[in-house]
């Protein structure tokens, strides 16, 4: 900060260099003596602020058209898909495992045929029901445990690191336990899903609540939010992007656990997993691969949906550029 000598009240005719000096060293016009009193040409505050705001606004770019963005997202996927088909076809041409491996077109025909059967849609429906029930329970358990651990110091010390550790466990590891507890029963699959996926959801809640900026909490309290209203109006919305990340990861783990459960526990032969195992026992390559494609497709679709929600939330929160 520049140091000026003290001056008396009537000293209006100060040198320009002094009258224009700013404490923070900003450049100044520095040419008009007597700038100390407001000149007649000075614009109004309204006008000056409006001008400044207009300058700030000008920098924002418009987003590309939807069709353009779609195309940009799609073509790399199409090329990747094409390469996979090509490698597969080459393997067939090269007579690798000739009695098992069949061409992509044979599988495609099989898939097309499957899509026309009501049995296939029954399988999808059975698996979807199981997925919804299991995932709902994953969210409930994960949410409660996560919130409790984030809020209670003893719980955090006790099981905080356990939750992170559980996240690294493959869900198949829960199969023996689930099978022993519930036997050949849909409940066993739900147990596998909860044990496999709830830790990821809980972690989303924990890190979300941990990372609420303290200044927002302080602002919320000053504005009059206390206790539950602070949770509802500040903590939960502030934690939401991270919670959503946990839900997305939790879905991936729940889907893994569900598929492992359907393959191993064989509760419902009409589910997607059950049908696949059935085809496997009959050495029916086209059906096995067709079911795999269906299962991967469902997983990808749900992931895409999550990513879209995630992106729009992040954009709304200002966590994304542009």
């Amino acid at each position, binding site marked *: 900060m520049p140091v000026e000598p003290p*001056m008396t009240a009537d000293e209006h005719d100060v040198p320009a260099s002094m*009258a224009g000096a700013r404490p923070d060293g900003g450049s100044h016009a520095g040419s008009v003596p007597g700038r100390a009193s407001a000149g007649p040409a000075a614009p109004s505050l*309204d006008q000056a602020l409006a001008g400044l705001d207009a300058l*700030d606004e000008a920098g*924002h770019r418009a987003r590309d058209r939807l069709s353009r963005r779609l195309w940009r997202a799609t073509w790399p996927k199409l090329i990747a898909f094409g390469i996979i088909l090509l490698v597969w076809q080459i393997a067939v041409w090269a007579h690798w495992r000739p009695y098992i491996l069949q061409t992509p077109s044979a599988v495609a025909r099989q898939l097309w045929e499957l899509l026309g059967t009501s049995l296939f849609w029954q399988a999808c429906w059975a698996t979807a029901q199981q997925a919804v029930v299991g995932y709902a329970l994953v969210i409930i358990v994960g949410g409660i445990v996560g919130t409790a651990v984030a809020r209670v110091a003893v719980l955090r010390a006790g099981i905080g690191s356990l939750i992170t550790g559980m996240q690294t466990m493959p869900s198949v590891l829960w199969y023996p336990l689930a099978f022993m507890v519930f036997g050949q029963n849909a409940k066993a699959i739900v147990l596998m899903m909860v044990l496999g996926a709830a830790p990821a959801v809980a972690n989303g809640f924990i890190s979300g609540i941990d990372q609420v900026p303290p200044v927002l909490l302080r602002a919320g309290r*000053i504005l009059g939010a206390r206790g539950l209203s602070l949770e509802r109006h500040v903590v939960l919305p502030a934690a939401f992007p991270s919670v959503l990340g946990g839900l997305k990861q939790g879905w991936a783990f729940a889907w893994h656990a569900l598929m492992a459960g359907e393959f191993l526990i064989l509760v419902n032969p009409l589910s997607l997993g059950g049908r696949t195992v059935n085809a496997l026992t009959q050495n029916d390559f086209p059906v096995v691969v067709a079911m795999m494609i269906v299962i991967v497709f469902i997983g990808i679709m749900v992931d895409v949906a999550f990513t879209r929600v995630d992106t729009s939330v992040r954009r709304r929160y200002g966590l994304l550029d542009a």
Partner: protein
Amino acid sequence: MTAVTPAPTTWPAGPAPSIRLSGVSKRHGDATSGVVALQDISLDVAPGEFVCLVGASGCGKTTLLNLVAGLDRPSVGTVEVATAAADGSGAPTAKAPVRQSGGTASAMLFQDSALFPWLTVAANVELPLRLRSVGKTERRAVADDLLDRVHLGGFGSKRPHELSGGMRQRAALARALAQDAGLLLMDEPFGALDAITRDLLHDELESLWMDRGFTVLFVTHNVREAARLGDRIVLLTSRPGRVAASFPVGLDRPRRIDSAEIAGLAAMVTDQLRSEVGRHAR
């Protein structure tokens, strides 16, 4: 006129103060290894007064504001804050748009606007009203008024991150005014802004304050800013924070930050601030 004589640190007898700190000390941590943030601070702020607290880092500015806001308790001493305009002294918020009995005692502005990113600008301004259960239509009308008042009419549907730093601070100001608190605490609110924006926001704040007559406790490390805005500059020492001196600023308003009188006063405060800071050299 320039009145640059150091004054006694307490307000002379007159109307009941808006804020009264008596012998306030605050220690963070335990008695042996803790840090004394504030020591024996006594300070009265009159209703409608604009007081600027100036100090180097470590003077406990934020701690002091937290005490006044009721977010923290003093280790020793008492903090009294008059509740809004309810005492009828000088009608501080007589021109405010809402007169809710449940108005919070103090509003605060931060260096970071602390707007909630998940709400639109208008919803941010409405939030304090919502927390006081004000009806939807009234809320909307008040928020529109306030946004117009801070020259943000038409920006209500934007998200905070879509606004510039200066616009965010104006939106935060509108949200603070929606509290109808009668006391505005400001924690280096313009510290992160460029000089041109800051200059305009000084004008904006001064005109709002002259309109509405709320009490302001404004923390800054920018001495010029303090001289530009305050009725009185209170200089705090660092580690521990104590009141070193108090300078009444008897300059006419509206003021300009580049006026000679403000430069002169700022130079004087700066000299004393430097000698305070110099005492910490090892």
